[in-house]
């Protein structure tokens, strides 16, 4: 096991989350949900701390983190963009919308822009199929997205941080 270089407050938070679930290996997924909720992502060192607390091999934690698509080992951008690639959105042109985001941001799916502003992901059905194709930026939902909308969405979120929207 490598030495942990995480700040003490992060380690304390993780220890606390594990303790809340009685350091039970059976609670691993719930613990990972909370850890990701707090830290935003689950890098290797975080997994090592959790494994130590639960007294299980790191490989088991890593196995679970990489198995489920909800967990991520890389941080997301300040404005995480998710394009719904559920079937309903796909047949209404989600793929071309996704391609347009890739082209405009010059990143691939799973990528983050160099300035950390945007990250791009595809997801499977948010259940707003009546609004297909659907794009999410953070919690905000954009429905019936067309190609010209892509630029507008990016510009809307490129404003300075002080802007509330």
């Amino acid at each position, binding site marked *: 096991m490598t030495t942990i270089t995480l700040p003490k407050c992060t380690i304390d938070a993780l220890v606390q989350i594990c303790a809340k679930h009685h350091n039970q290996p059976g609670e691993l997924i719930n613990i990972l949900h909370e850890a990701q909720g707090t830290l935003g992502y689950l890098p290797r060192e975080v997994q090592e701390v959790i494994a130590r607390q639960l007294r299980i091999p790191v490989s088991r934690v890593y196995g679970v983190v990489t198995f489920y698509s909800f967990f991520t080992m890389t941080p997301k951008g300040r404005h995480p963009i998710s394009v719904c690639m559920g079937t309903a959105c796909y047949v209404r042109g989600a793929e071309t919308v996704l391609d347009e985001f890739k082209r405009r941001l010059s990143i691939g799916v799973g990528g983050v822009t160099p300035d950390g502003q945007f990250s791009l992901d595809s997801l499977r*059905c948010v259940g707003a199929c009546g609004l297909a194709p659907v794009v999410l930026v953070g919690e905000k939902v954009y429905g019936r997205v067309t190609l010209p909308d892509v630029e507008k969405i990016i510009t809307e979120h490129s404003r300075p941080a002080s802007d509330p929207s």
Partner: protein
Amino acid sequence: MSYKMHALVCGGTGCRASSSQGIIAKLRETLETKHLEEEVQVIATGCFGFCEQGPIVKIMPDNTFYTRVTPEDVGEIVNEHVIKGRKVERLLYKDPERRERASDSKHMGFYRKQLRVALRNCGFIDPENIEEYIGRDGYAALAKCLGEMTPEEVVKEIKLSGLRGRGGGGFPTGLKWEFASRYSADQKYVVCNADEGDPGAFMDRSIMEGDPHSVIEAMAICGYSIGATRGLVYIRAEYPLAIQRLKTAIRQAEEYGLLGEGVLGSDFCFSIELRYGAGAFVCGEETALIHSMEGARGEPTMKPPFPAESGYLNRPTNVNNVETFANVPVIITKGANWFNKIGTERSKGTKVFALAGKINNVGLIEVPMGTTLREVIYEIGGGIKNGKKFKAVQTGGPSGGCLTEKHLDVPIDFDNLLASGSMMGSGGMIVMDEDDCMVAVAKFYLDFTVEESCGKCTPCRVGNKRLHEILDKITRGEGEPADIDRLRNLGKVIKDTALCGLGQTSPNPVLSTLDNFLDEYLAHVNKRECPAGRCKELLAYVIDPLLCIGCTLCTRTCPTGAITGNRKEPHRVDAAKCIKCGTCIDKCKFKAISVH
């Protein structure tokens, strides 16, 4: 306090995405300024189903159904409808066929053929208020079970009803409960599978958001009948609203003595907890789901032992999905003989479908088993969008298949869909038109399966990857005739040899499109053509100089600046810059741009 009027506003995820919360806030605010807040009650309900026309506002008791409402319309609704009693005509639903406005849902083609059993309360009650559920006979079924029926009688009633699992497999629910009741252990579990993974299906989420108590009541009934005292809901973490509503409902049920120690004064105890899924399609398989609840990778294991014998923490466990549970309370209150008169000989009751894709009325529908695809697509769904030609309907999600014109009059039930080369699945129903390439659709589903395969067995892990590679090759115009046979043979081998339901059904989208759309595959392979004009590598965009009048609309809408030309002169497409997105074709009023 008794209200004279109720304004029901859809609070489902779809309508919330288009600002239904803003409508609710604006309604409350406007009513307050007019001092009407004690006469009109504003209720955020679950999904009405008619998502295409959302956000929906329904005014009761006159049953007026307003569509595509915005917060700006609220003032007019209050002034005209609430105060003066005049309907706001422009917000009423306009039937495209009859060209007249319908003021209530009974007169709308979308609702006429529907029969809402599992969705009975969605769009009628406030899901965050247990009193409203109780007011519509809620928890009467649980009271009947505890007061008048033995556990064996409950199982017998469910068996007699003919209810089959709505999550995909269609296994008889009563039989499942009977198996679980046979095993004795220190602890047994009732699990609700709410890990809706089929992309394009959202009925389970809508039920949990719109009527969470029906699931809770059914789980308690199941617990009583099989002798379990603990219930677990395995729910997708991506469903925050459903999670919040379930939590509220569980808390309320506990406060009312409907969950916990001594339910309704009997000696039956039952509690419910939530477990969160983390995005894995394979977790819809019950053994994988159980491993995931235990905090491990959601990999399936061989059956037997079945979960009824050894499931969660090696204890007897009964797993049913959300929609299956939602049917249970009605079966108990109205009786198995009421339920088994609905539907076909071997598929009883109704089925909820998420109707989406190239169809006019996207939404959540519930129809009796035995309704035909034609009725669903043309009468309820209102036909194909933009007057295009129907090509196929995909049912059963990534495990299902594509049905065509010739299947339109097949009565929908578990067995007929299987015989037609598809399956019921969880009830996704995606309609496709002439512009959809079936090879690309098959590839899309394989994309999904390859990503979601857990990797445990070779046929699924490696076989699907190979299927995907062959399909990819064909859509890039590099396929060869022998690839068609390769797809068929490999597909059959995967079906026969994969470990779990995911792998055994994953080649279905390929095999069913091969059966029904072989000429499309052949066109890709032999002529290097995509008849639907979807596969980008096989396309070139061309402007016909005789038809182009040089209006410049396409140059202004092209996202890459690939189209050039002077005003009033024919334009040209630069093939190197063109990303083949199709925006120009949609915009051109002179049909001057075509795909070759």
